[in-house]
């Protein structure tokens, strides 16, 4: 496989236009190639054909060529993809296919990037803690309980989620304090592991992995080739429960008395906490980072966490008059000052269910 030049039994190969980034850390540019493409092939097949013909030293990573090892991550026409899972039939016949290395990581050569950042973060994430009282062979777990973690263990470590995460993609300086979606779901996986003996996974994710920096744009979920619901099933539950604990007055008090990580275990089981939250919400007036609202329903909503799922309204253009001008004149306007840049129909403070931003330093309150 891979290196074969012979066309399959289908249509004979067509010539297609490719642009591939060639270079190293000192720079490089896109080079044009015209290459034969046969029916049923994927981008990686074409890269292999290029290696065997025009570009023998073209550097790319690959292993299984079956979407199972996560080695061949690149950006194809700007989209982060596995090149072994990108079918040529998804492009039109005259479309130029542009292949570039992952943008978030330093280039080594051509399509190969230095992904060691991810392995460093993997090493920093505390490992599974086996239960002390169970010998090998004595582990008993129910299928429904292991399934939640199993979803995250499908991860093939292609690092596409790390590549698209804005927190690292746009801010190199965040890499120090931010582990990225891959390691949030690792933390979530261990948090949901029925027998993991460590109980502060969420607190760790917040304090050490930079979970708070994530502002839930769901880009990671969108690119995941394993279709892991990274945001909905991993990150949000982690954030929510961190929020639960943070705004539970008992836990809050406890965290003032004990140092972080030394919170007494009894107060951090999720049943206990959610019970406490319900209780306090009924009384109203609990401190919430959304502030101000005394609507109990909104307060409960706030306690459960911010409404990350809310669809952000798209900005709309204002109505204009026949001349294409805004219909504003000082004379006809119904108030005496300039209109609000947020729109005059918005009143402050915003109800918490309309928020979708968590301040990264919210835990410092």
């Amino acid at each position, binding site marked *: 496989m891979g290196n074969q030049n012979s066309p399959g039994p289908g249509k004979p190969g067509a010539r297609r236009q490719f642009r591939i980034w060639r270079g190293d850390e000192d720079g490089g540019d896109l080079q044009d190639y015209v290459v034969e493409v046969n029916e049923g092939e994927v981008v990686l097949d074409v890269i292999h054909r290029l290696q*065997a013909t025009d570009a023998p*030293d073209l550097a790319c990573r690959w292993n299984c060529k*079956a979407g199972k*090892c996560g080695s061949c991550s690149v950006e194809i026409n700007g989209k982060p993809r596995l090149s072994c899972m990108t079918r040529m039939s998804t492009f039109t016949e005259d479309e130029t296919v542009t292949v570039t290395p992952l943008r978030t990581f330093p280039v080594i050569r051509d399509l190969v990037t230095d992904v060691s950042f991810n392995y460093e973060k993997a*090493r920093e994430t505390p490992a599974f803690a086996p239960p002390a009282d169970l010998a*090998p*062979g004595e582990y008993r777990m*129910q299928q429904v309980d292991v399934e939640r973690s199993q979803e995250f263990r499908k991860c093939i*470590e292609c690092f596409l989620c790390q590549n698209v995460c804005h927190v690292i993609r746009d801010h190199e300086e965040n890499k120090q304090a931010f582990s990225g979606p891959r390691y949030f779901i690792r933390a979530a996986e261990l948090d949901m592991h029925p027998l993991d003996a460590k109980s502060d996974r969420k607190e760790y994710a917040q304090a050490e992995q930079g979970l708070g920096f994530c502002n839930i744009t769901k880009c990671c979920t969108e690119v995941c080739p394993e279709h892991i619901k990274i945001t909905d099933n991993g990150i949000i539950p982690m954030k929510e429960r961190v929020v639960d604990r943070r705004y539970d007055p008992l836990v809050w008090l406890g965290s003032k008395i004990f140092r972080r990580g030394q919170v007494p275990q009894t107060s951090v089981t999720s049943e206990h906490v959610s019970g406490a939250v319900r209780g306090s919400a009924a009384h109203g007036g609990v401190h919430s980072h959304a502030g101000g609202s005394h609507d109990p329903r909104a307060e409960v909503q706030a306690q459960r966490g911010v409404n990350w799922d809310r669809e952000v309204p798209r900005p709309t253009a204002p109505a204009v008059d026949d001349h294409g001008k805004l219909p504003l004149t000082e004379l006809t306007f119904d108030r005496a000052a300039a209109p609000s840049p947020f729109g005059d129909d918005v009143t402050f403070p915003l109800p918490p269910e309309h928020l979708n931003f968590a301040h990264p330093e919210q835990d410092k309150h």
Partner: protein
Amino acid sequence: MTNTTRIERHHYDVVVIGAGGAGLRAAIEARLAGKKTAIISKSLFGKAHTVMAEGGAAAAMGNVNSRDNWQVHFRDTMRGGKFLNNFRMAELHAKESPQRIWELETYGALFDRTKDGKISQRNFGGHEYPRLAHVGDRTGLELIRTLQQKIVSLQQEDKRDHGSYDARIKVFSETTITELLLDGDRVAGAFGYYRESGEFVLFEAPAVVLATGGVGRSYKVTSNSWEYTGDGHALALRAGATLINMEFLQFHPTGMVWPPSVKGILVTESVRGDGGVLKNSDGKRFMFDYVPDVFRKQYAETEEEADRWYTDPDNNRRPPELLPRDEVARAINSEVKAGRGTPAGGVYLDIASRKSAEEIRRRLPSMYHQFKELADVDITKEPMEVGPTCHYVMGGVEVDPDSGAAFGHVQGLFAAGEVSGGMHGSNRLGGNSLSDLLVFGKRAGGHAATYADSLPARPKVGVAAVEAAVETALAPLQRDTGESPYVLQQDLQAVMGDLVGIIRRENELADALGRLAELRERVAKVSAAGGRRYNPGWHLALDLRNMLVVSECTAKAALERRESRGGHTREDHPAMDPSWRRVNLVCSLDGDTVRLARKPLPTMRTELIGLFDRAELAKYLTDEELAEFDAQVADVETEKER
């Protein structure tokens, strides 16, 4: 070019070459034994070919059927390997694999569960009871991730105790070993290069564990990745070790043959275990015509009985689709040759008409997902086109069964996993490789550590050997007259695929040896364009000589063995010959020449051979051996009477 003279040096107690299941398990063991351990990974950490294993890991835990135990597993393994297995390895494997699987749970693995919360086990070809611990159809990924994470957890301990993650166990990713260095007969180190920079690196270590996997890249249609170039096989040969059983290659019966984006990719046997059936272009379920006599008793004769088995396995015999892999591969090959194949040269594997779409998606999630995304094939709606694909090499480094130490005239060399030979005999049962990795990975790592301790002084790496290794490695870059490594690889794949493939003939094998000799000349003059930094052409040029020498071993042994058995089918000698069962073919290297020798198989201990019916043994053993067996049984009887 950057620096060409600098060679980075490292000192370790144990160097493990290969970061798949066997390598990682060996490294964990060596590190737990207190040895400073290096893991050399040809790819990134966690990408090894082990991730491709779908079905599961066979271990007689008896969670689903309590009648299962190590004796039954041992019997199945020997049967599957057509009694050519090293019995001691099969015994250790059957006895120790449950422990190895349970151990993985303490590292954090999450297998699928039974109703009572134990590890679930599934049916698989050649296994009498449901035996494969699994996670959907991504068991290999679970295994590699679990071992990877265990290594991280050991590194975290080391960071706590010694201040550095790399204090006692370090992963050298994207690093390839090109040469083992010896001090007399003793392993002294390993020489290689970093893929990223092209810089050379020298590991000085008294003990080396080979865990480099297989040789599939020498074949045209293969499920194997670029790494599978027989590096460990060739390193062992050049260091003075021997290879056995190299004629036995497993062609997985059901690799995709169409479309090309998925060509060679395996369709897990669980598709058949869950009800999938093989049909030819006439729509006939043909496997009933191919049940060999030795298996007649265990397999259904009618479609009705076969279909009842899925729900009532205790009162019905198994469907013939679940015959061992070699039988299924041969049957498909025969159908295609008889003109009843698909246009792409395969047969149909149909699960779409037998299970609901929902059930298929639930039972085979990654299979469904993979073909949908890679090839736009919906396995819940249409049958798959499948055919035999080069998948696994049973042959490998001849090792001591208990310690994994290589035979031949080299000390300090160990091997585990696919690169070692003997465990699977002439054919490997599905599911036995993942448990093989764990059982013998642990053993090899542990014994390598013990060996390193036992040495009074460290062997020394000779300067001349390092210089020679540098020269060999740089040669393809310095030549600009030779052929492209890609062309040479294609030619090698054509020779092996066409002449030393699934069905073999004497004249073709002789022809193959002639062509391999020509290729050897051409490979010696290969030239690679470009520089030393991450240059796949150069890397392939260096791998070619390994692929070539291992291919020669396979072709020579295949020519010598005049019978058909497991992963070796001779059209001119179609029957299994009991006298050949007593013989292992052993390859060694004499200068540049591959030498082949015959060696008798070790004799099975009485209590082990006693696990089989005489009627079954009669199919495999010579009359002479049967007479011995009868005498042993008589002895035991008289023993009892006293």
